[in-house]
């Protein structure tokens, strides 16, 4: 399946995950995502997501001026962002468990847990 389609729902989670440990600027975060395996992630999607997370209070941002080139804008996670990360990670685990159950076979369907959004 097209990775970009799958990413739509979980890009927030992925971005929060890669800035959890260390602040980063836009392309830096893109690179982290790609290095982590999301090779097809579009940089514009990541920048847009960063902005949206910032607007929601999950990220903080600061500009680092440079003398010779354009300014860099760094993003760091906030307590709200950490809460969101935790919540969404739990959701993701529940969801992926459910989906794994479905994929493993019909027998496991009765035992699989429902998705709790």
């Amino acid at each position, binding site marked *: 399946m097209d990775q970009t389609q799958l990413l739509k729902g979980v890009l927030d989670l992925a971005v929060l995950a890669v800035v959890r440990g260390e602040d980063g*600027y836009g392309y830096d975060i893109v690179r982290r995502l790609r290095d982590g395996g999301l090779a097809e992630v579009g940089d514009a999607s990541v920048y*847009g997501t960063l902005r949206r997370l910032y607007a929601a209070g999950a990220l903080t941002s600061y500009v680092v001026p440079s003398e010779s*080139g*354009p300014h860099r804008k760094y993003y760091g996670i906030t307590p709200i962002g950490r809460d969101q990360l935790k919540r969404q990670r739990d959701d993701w685990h529940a969801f992926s468990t459910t989906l794994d159950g479905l994929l493993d076979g019909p027998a496991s369907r009765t035992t699989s847990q429902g998705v709790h959004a």
Partner: protein
Amino acid sequence: MNTTELPLRPDVAAFVARVRECLADLSEEDRLELTEGLEADLTDQVAEHDGGVLGDPEAYARELRTAAGFEPVARRRTRLRADVSLAERVEDLTRRWEELIAHRRVAPVWHLLVALRPAWWVVRAWAAAVVVARLVPGWYPYGLTWLPGVPVGVGLALLAACIVGSALVGMGRLWPGGTSSVLARTTLLLLNVAAVVAVPVINGQLDRLSWDRYSQGYNEAQWGGNEQGLLNRGQQVCNIAAYDAEGQPLEGVQLFDQAGRPLDVRCYDQQATKVPWVLGDVTRWNVFPLGERDRPARNATRRADLSDAAFPTPDRATTPEVTNPLVPEEVEPVKEPTGRKGRAKDGAERDGKGDEKGDGVSRR
């Protein structure tokens, strides 16, 4: 943390500028939020991939907007922002307008509209003429239907003058047409908008006016009676006095029109003031003359009383000697001299004569 600083590349700068344009509808804060640091990020990216990573700025902007939770494409209406000068906005609008009218589907319609401009000049001239007509002191109730308030001649002259003026403005020969100054353009725009608004308003007023006239005419017709009856020179005929070729008054003359319909007379209060002829129990109003009463008899009892009724003698009625080539000369020297005023009960005898002669009054 990668803090390597790279100089801004011109292709990146142009790309980012184009992306910013695609975000023009967003607030300044949102736009800054989305594009701040974009140059640095893209510069990094380009440096890392050795160029060739910058794609279509519009697609890029769309992706950026979608991910950030905005509509993928800027809405038509750009929000007014303080940092864009009025001239730029006008320029932008002009550009969009030109794009619109150059559009494959819009262009034919636009060409048609352009061709119809003179028609619009006439319409707005008419609107102006009506407005002027309304300003004329002493509103004139009758005029041209579509240009009320002034006599016909004045109205036509006024309309002609307005059409000439409107056309000159339209062709750019008369202020406020032809110049591109803000004042002139604004004035022209306001005048045109006023005309657009005025036309339906005027139309509504004209409708009402014509209805008023209609109902006025209708009322006048009502006042004159339900049926017109017989008219002579615009006046209702209430009675007819017939004379034969000798100038003798006739009684019991029955009149019919060209289609054989009885020539009934109808007048106000006819039943009460006239004595009709009778056929069995049917009153006949096409037999003349009708007897007239001195006083109206408004009920059956009074109508039965014929004491005050008599055949009328019309004033100033003269019967000159007339001839008709269809009537053969007849020598009838001996004629009983009957006084013209002598309304004797010899109608039947005269009827007989009239029948033989067959002149003057048609009989059946």
